[in-house]
């Protein structure tokens, strides 16, 4: 986890220099003001486009589609430098989620139409999986697309579509066939326009007071037949590939958590201990901090193990679930400790001060500004993307079927 004699020192210096010259103060502010997995939209997309101009927006992609051709070590070094500079993480919906799925399952036309906008940051994709009433039970989804000669008509709704109010594209799962098993008859759709008759997007205000997720309603929305990615009725295959690819990507929870813990340590260094000393010198704080650090080390090790594991192997499924569980629960514990460390200043509701570019100064230390929104927002970490309960079911099922 620590930097040692680095053969990539020159490469890193180049990255640092580029960041130094190109990441403006608002982009950096967006990094500091992250309170969720999803960075503030406008600045992070601007940073995406800046990286794209340098050719660095999609380091892990094949060169033909806009990748950098870097070695895995270079990609890792690049990520580490971005993290060290506390830049906002690029939004994953295009780059790590639908993009790879299009590369794998898309027709030549679909690739031409969709991939360039993902790499360039011109397009933003939102994910439409969940439905009101469906929750963790994806097989029961009821948003449907009925085929008419040269188009589908979509009826139903999607929820927890991240940043849909900022999006111009959407990938979603729809039911195209109502016979057979519930998992069958689902198709994976790509919408390249959200400004369609019958399509309505309504932001949802979250616990943290911020609109990150949305409801999306479809009332006889017409989309062309080539909206379907992969085979019709076989959307599960695409969705499963997407999920595994996302987990197996180079993005690391552990590295992110280490960064969060360092922030927390910084906060403890400027926080009192109630007796006139620094909280960072309190052995109990140190104990709790080290406990989390040790948990992160396990997440890190498990991610490293997963990275070299054959995907789709009997082992990779449960390990993927295990990473989701342990990473999300660790994250929640980190945000919980942060609330305790920040104390009273964490209680101030500061929606204005959280806006990137805001002139409203924070109440209390700036380092405490994001503490409560992070705590609140990340309560969702064990709910969305397959709840911890569902993940444990998956692991148990595998264990008991052996």
């Amino acid at each position: 986890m620590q930097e040692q004699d680095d053969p990539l020192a020159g490469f890193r210096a180049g990255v640092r220099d580029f960041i130094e010259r190109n990441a403006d103060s608002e982009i950096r502010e967006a990094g500091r003001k992250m309170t969720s997995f999803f960075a503030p939209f406008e600045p992070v997309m601007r940073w995406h486009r800046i990286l794209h101009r340098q050719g660095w927006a999609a380091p892990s992609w094949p060169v033909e589609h806009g990748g950098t051709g870097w070695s895995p070590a270079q990609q890792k070094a690049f990520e580490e430098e971005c993290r060290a500079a506390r830049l906002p993480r690029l939004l994953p919906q295009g780059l790590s989620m639908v993009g790879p799925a299009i590369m794998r399952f898309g027709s030549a036309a679909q690739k031409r139409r969709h991939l360039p906008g993902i790499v360039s940051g011109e397009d933003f994709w939102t994910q439409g999986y969940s439905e009101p009433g469906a929750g963790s039970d994806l097989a029961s989804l009821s948003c449907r697309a009925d085929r008419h000669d040269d188009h589908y008509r979509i009826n139903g709704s999607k929820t927890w579509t991240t940043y849909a109010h900022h999006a111009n594209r959407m990938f979603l799962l729809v039911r195209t066939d109502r016979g057979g098993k519930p998992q069958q008859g689902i198709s994976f759709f790509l919408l390249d326009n959200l400004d369609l008759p019958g399509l309505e997007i309504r932001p949802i205000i979250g616990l943290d007071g911020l609109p990150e997720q949305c409801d999306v309603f479809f009332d006889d929305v017409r989309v062309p037949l080539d909206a379907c990615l992969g085979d019709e009725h076989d959307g599960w295959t695409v969705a499963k590939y997407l999920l595994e690819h996302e987990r197996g990507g180079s993005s690391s929870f552990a590295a992110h958590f280490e960064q969060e813990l360092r922030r927390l340590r910084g906060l403890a260094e400027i926080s009192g201990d109630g007796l006139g000393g620094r909280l960072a010198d309190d052995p109990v704080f140190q104990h709790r901090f080290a406990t989390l650090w040790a948990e992160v080390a396990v997440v890190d090790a498990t991610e490293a193990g997963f990275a070299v594991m054959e995907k789709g192997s009997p082992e990779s499924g449960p390990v993927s679930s295990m990473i989701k569980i342990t990473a999300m629960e660790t994250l929640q514990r980190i945000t919980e400790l942060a609330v305790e460390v920040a104390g009273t200043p964490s209680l101030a509701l500061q929606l204005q001060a959280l806006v990137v570019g805001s002139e409203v100064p924070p109440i209390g230390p700036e380092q405490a500004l994001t503490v409560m929104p992070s705590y609140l927002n990340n309560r969702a970490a064990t709910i969305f993307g397959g709840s911890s309960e569902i993940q444990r079911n998956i692991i148990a099922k595998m264990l008991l079927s052996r």
Partner: protein
Amino acid sequence: MSTLNAEARALLDHSVERYLRQHYDFPARRRIAAGAAGYSPDHWQRFAELGWLGIPFTEADGGLGGTPADTLGLMRAFGEALVVEPYLAVVGLAGQALARVADTATASGLLAALVAGQARPALAWEEAGSRGNPALVSVRAHHQGGQWRLNGDKIGVPHGAQATHLLVSARHAGEAAETHGVDLFLLDPAAGGVTLTGYPTVDGHRAANLTLDDAPARPLTADAQAVALLRQVLDQAILMATAEATGIMQTLLDKTLDYTRTRHQFGVPIASFQVLQHRLADMYIACTGTAHLLEHTLTGWRPHGDNQTAAALLKVRLNQAGRYLGQQAIQLHGGIGMTDELDVGHYFKRLTALGVQFGGDDYFLRRIWAGG
């Protein structure tokens, strides 16, 4: 422990419940919290008329002659209805401080106005890094030309920006964290040198940070022992906060029970999953244990004495059980629990705030060790 008789208290609790049922549903609460003042002056006036503001004050001060223990039924109901009116701030903190100061003449007048709903004093005891310890006072008081003046900063003053009076702890001897050398002062929020920065808090309440720059002040205590007084006041406030928390916890448990019974997944109500059943059982345990602890604590509670260890035990429990209840209520509600629209998240946030207020686990565990 109560000095009100059981009948009077039952009547009172009943009136609170009826009033809130009639006038304080969740949409109403949301409107009040979103308003400029952050509370409803109309409700506050009704609270005064119904005698609620006077419960824990002597009859000489216009009160009902009870103690903070007599407010617990009210506080529990306030928890259930998620009331944002500053009862804990005004009656519990500032009022309890006033009831203990040496300058009884000033206090008595102010208390009478408080009980009548006309004065809403706020208590400014906390500073950056206090973590529950009222001895950590670096606001300085100095006496100059017959006038005390205060300098320094306080944080998190509950309902501070809406207060009619400020009670501020300040040090004129000793160093920060020393017990000796602190007195309590009365300030006019409108006076020169007083800067209040008000803000809403995540739980729909209000607070303020206070900056004092040679602000003129009147001493309410004179023996440099205000830290002991504040400890008593904070411990009473913890008692009241725990009652509010038990109301919230029970409500969250009930709402989660209802939700899991009606919400279907995989073709069955999610309450039929044993893992969620055990989670509900643990929520019940967290909730019920807190209620029993509160009840049992009352048997040894001293309305005018030291409750250091008892209050610490309550606060640790409030924090831990509150976190568990709140987090699990969200988890079991799933996505819908993450929305601002559903009331569950607001109960969760109030529990979270009560856990942070007056200090976290570590401070009170240290106290339990010292007293154990």
